[in-house]
């Protein structure tokens, strides 16, 4: 090899009598007649790769003012101001809650070196890369962009790109679930498990891996995917779709392992955690859920799998299973959780608090279940999982000391192509919507493509914030 290099050097150093010059001229001549691939920038915009590091967008309602980003920024170019606010207790007799209110969040782009550390480090998924890059100013001082502008850019953040086939997702092994969309929307399989507490969630997540390996094919067939959403109710495992809810215990057993994976997935959805109550009611629904799932994905080759998997609801993942019988009355929930907690060795106060939470959730779940029925199929047309779609709900916001207070940010996770919707149709629809909103062509197409992708793999909800959103609170 070394000899080879030497020989080549030797050859290169030999006098060429101007042949090299002629070669150079030939290259230029070739280029003169080549098709020119210049993109005429201000007129035509390049479709930048989805992971382009353009600017950093801020999802204000996700920010807990934890200051991690500001501390980690190597350039110290993030400025954060906040104050504490005391909120009235959520219900009678509660404890007044404190929460940080973000007053100022600014990034000095004149200093920023686009290292991405802030995006990486934010535990609450409040910072995202946007492909936007036209933010030049006439004065260097104006390059310090305030949170208003940073939030505006949120609209330009694309959903994360699809992972490679068979790629390992640390901590969340299973695949996205398509049919899920509906479920997630209506009765988000909250971590009902209020009681389930973070601990249980994590445990299920960790177990999930092996389970998946056994039953759920990595490739995430449509079936498994379909199962996910339903299954997604983490611990509460009780599933969503309250209106349909019926337990299917037998199935539950079969799919249990798989479910466990799903739980991990479920964690990904903040909203899932929230209305926990739904879970309680959900129990009954499994059979129907199953049917539904089947009905929706009948044509897929994996339909057999579908039959097995849907029970997600049933899923009774590890812990919650025992509690899932039928609609639990709030008071029952209270009593039960209290009981469990004291058995588990929680201090009386904690046990009581958790029990209360469980009661409240159970109540809420009931109401929601009643209300939710009609909405089920109607997908909100919001832009595909663009994080921006989330609606701020400050009071439930970022401060998430107890499970029930976990962020509910993405309530109408619109992305929701309605389950089973034809990817092409999704594409068209999103494109239409984007156009209507006045997005630039490139952005509209990109989002439409993203939506199609999601629809194609059947996932309704792959918005970035859902995927990791719960990481912080739970861990």
């Amino acid at each position, binding site marked *: 090899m070394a000899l080879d290099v030497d020989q080549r050097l030797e050859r290169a150093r030999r006098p060429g009598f101007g042949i090299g*010059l002629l070669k*150079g*001229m030939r290259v*230029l*001549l070739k*280029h*003169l007649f*080549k098709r*020119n*691939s*210049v993109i*005429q920038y201000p007129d035509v915009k390049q479709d930048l790769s989805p992971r382009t590091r353009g600017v950093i967008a801020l999802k204000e309602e996700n920010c807990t003012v934890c200051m991690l980003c500001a501390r980690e920024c190597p350039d110290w170019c993030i400025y954060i101001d906040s104050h504490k606010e005391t909120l009235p207790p959520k219900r009678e007799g509660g404890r007044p809650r404190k929460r940080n209110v973000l007053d100022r969040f600014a990034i000095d782009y004149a200093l920023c070196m686009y290292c991405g550390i802030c995006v990486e480090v934010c535990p609450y998924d409040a910072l995202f890369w946007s492909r936007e890059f036209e933010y030049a100013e006439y004065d260097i001082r104006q390059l310090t962009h305030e949170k208003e502008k940073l939030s505006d850019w949120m609209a330009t953040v694309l959903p994360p790109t699809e992972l490679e086939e068979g790629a390992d997702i640390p901590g969340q092994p299973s695949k996205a679930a398509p049919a899920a969309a509906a479920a997630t929307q209506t009765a988000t399989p909250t971590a009902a498990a209020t009681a389930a507490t973070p601990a249980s969630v994590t445990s299920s997540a960790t177990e999930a891996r092996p389970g998946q390996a056994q039953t759920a094919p990595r490739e995430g067939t449509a079936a498994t995917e379909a199962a996910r959403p339903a299954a997604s109710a983490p611990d509460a495992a009780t599933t969503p779709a309250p209106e349909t809810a019926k337990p299917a215990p037998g199935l539950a057993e079969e799919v249990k392992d798989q479910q466990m994976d799903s739980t991990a997935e479920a964690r990904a959805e903040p909203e899932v955690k929230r209305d926990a109550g739904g879970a309680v009611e959900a129990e009954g629904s499994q059979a129907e859920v199953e049917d539904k799932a089947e009905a929706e994905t009948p044509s897929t080759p994996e339909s057999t799998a579908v039959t097995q998997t849907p029970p997600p609801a049933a899923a009774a993942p590890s812990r919650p299973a025992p509690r899932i019988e039928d609609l639990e009355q709030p008071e029952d929930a209270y009593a039960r959780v209290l009981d469990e907690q004291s058995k588990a060795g929680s201090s009386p106060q904690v046990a009581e608090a958790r029990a209360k939470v469980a009661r409240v959730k159970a109540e809420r779940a009931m109401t929601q279940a009643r209300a939710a029925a009609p909405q089920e199929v109607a997908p909100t047309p919001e832009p595909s999982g663009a994080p921006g779609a989330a609606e701020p709900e400050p009071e439930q916001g970022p401060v998430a000391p107890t499970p029930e207070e976990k962020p509910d940010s993405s309530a109408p996770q619109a992305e929701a192509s309605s389950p089973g919707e034809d990817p092409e149709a999704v594409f068209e629809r999103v494109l239409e919507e984007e156009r209507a909103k006045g997005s630039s062509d490139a952005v509209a197409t990109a989002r439409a493509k993203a939506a199609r992708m999601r629809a194609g793999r059947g996932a309704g909800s792959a918005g970035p914030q859902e995927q990791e959103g719960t990481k912080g609170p739970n861990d």
Partner: protein
Amino acid sequence: MIEITLTDWQILLVKLLIILIVVPVGALVGGYVLHKEMAHMQHRLGPMYAGGWHGWAQTLADGIKFAYKEDIIPASADKRVFSLAPAVIFVPVLLLYLVIPIDQNLIVEDLDVGLFFLLAIGSVGSIGVLMAGWSSANKYALIGALRSAGQLIAYELPIVLSAAAIAMLAGTLSLVGIVEAQDWPYIVWPPGIGLALFLLFLAGAMAEMALPPFDMPVAESELITGPFTEYTGMRFIFGFFFAETAHMIAFAAIGTTLFLGGYKPIVPWEPLEVIPGVLWFFVKTSFMVFLLLWVRFSFPRLREDQLQKFAWKALIPLSLVLILATGAWILYGP
């Protein structure tokens, strides 16, 4: 048909007027071609906006822009010399066009010593460059001017000698006479010598015009714009851009005349004789311009010492040898 009778003076005036119109237009078109050819050779698009269609009006817009710019004369500059220099650079370039035969009878003045006139006038411009460089009271300008002068002295010889060889072959200094004396296949005749003379002329011409790769006088990475560093507005455009492009076209035309058979058809074939000589001349000159630009875009700038070495150690001996060879060919050739 109306007969128009003009006296010699009137004809001369009309011809001068034509030159005064054609040369600037030619320079504008040449500038546009320069932009475009360079861009596409470098896989870019070049000007695309001015004027609408592929930025055809870019050079015109540039010219207008420069016309509106303030004419700044540095405080410590030698004002008279500074103001005069662009004219001293530009006027000789215009004068070059006086003797170039565009067609057998289409020439402002077929001087008996046309070739000599070209060489003489072509060398006057360097005085202007020296004036510009010195009067600017700027060290970069001065260095640029000195480089320019050194370069001119070194490369004048190859040009003059190769032109002399052509004159020997043609037996005349009149440009029309030289064209008439040329026969197909123009530049490759006499074998070897013709082509070598052509290359010699090309190298000398590029160096004299300070085109890359011989553009050390204006080497922008070292000297900003060399002698023109302090110039602005119209003086800049006339002394630099306009003169450069007009000079380049003039040299392309001279090369066509001396080596490519001027206004004669490319191959001596009856039907081609119908096409007017002006067209042939235009085609050949365009080819020359293309060639000059092509070379210009292909090679990186030489270093000053490399340039001088190349001239004194390669080109000048080569040109002397070629003169000898030409003489031998005339005496003993067929």
